[in-house]
């Protein structure tokens, strides 16, 4: 989404979409904490994000930055830090609750930045009289 909104808002909305998806994965783990044989899952995105956040080149003299693809995908893996209980269920509820609030905070942080961004754009528009 180019133009006045720039790349930031579209990147932030990707992050928010990912946080939302991860919230679903964590909720699945919590809902299945007593299901025998269930393996805890987690979604990862951070690696893809690193390759996506590249700098723009405004001059041909600049070093070329690695091209990023617009498609953002998340991977769902087994949670490597979970423990195995006596019913082969690998959900560690304390860890899941920690992940839940951490993920919620990061979602809210992204939404806060989007809000600030829009607010500053609005301020810029208002200043022109």
């Amino acid at each position: 989404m180019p133009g006045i909104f720039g790349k930031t808002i579209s990147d932030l909305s990707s992050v928010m979409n990912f946080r939302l998806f991860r919230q679903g994965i964590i909720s699945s783990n919590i809902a299945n904490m007593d299901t025998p044989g269930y393996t805890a899952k987690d979604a990862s995105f951070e690696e893809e994000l690193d390759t996506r956040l590249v700098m723009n080149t405004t001059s041909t003299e600049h070093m070329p930055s690695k091209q990023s693809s617009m498609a953002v995908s998340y991977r769902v893996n087994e949670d490597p830090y979970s423990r195995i209980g006596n019913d082969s269920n690998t959900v560690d509820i304390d860890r899941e609750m920690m992940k839940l609030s951490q993920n919620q905070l990061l979602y809210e942080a992204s939404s806060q930045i989007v809000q600030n961004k829009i607010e500053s754009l609005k301020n810029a528009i208002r200043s022109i009289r």
Partner: protein
Amino acid sequence: MDLFTAMDISASGMRAQRTRMNIISSNIANAHTTRTDKGGPYQRRDVIFKENTFEDQLSSVDVQDIVLDPTPGKRHYDPGHPDADAEGYVNMPNVNMVEEMVNMIGATQAFEANTTAVKAERDMALKALAIGRI
């Protein structure tokens, strides 16, 4: 998926734990029941949870079945009891109070964990809505 998907998953967890709680309650209520429609003493019940995977590897939980516990109950010596056999023993239900209490604590905590998740999702939805409200 949207925020309501995550809420639906947590709701499925709450529903499953509530069913488990109901079953534990009926086990405790019938801990001394010696007569049933099928004859014989009350048999302890147990819930079977099953993972229900849908789109994008997200999975809710279903109560797949409610099964009877086949372990034999204690035989209680009480010759005056109307359900006593020829030797004076009464077959009691196979309900173990301690076990039911431990299960009850587990179900309560699991229910609360799901409620916390619903609260987190609600707060997230409100924060997302706040973006448009400047």
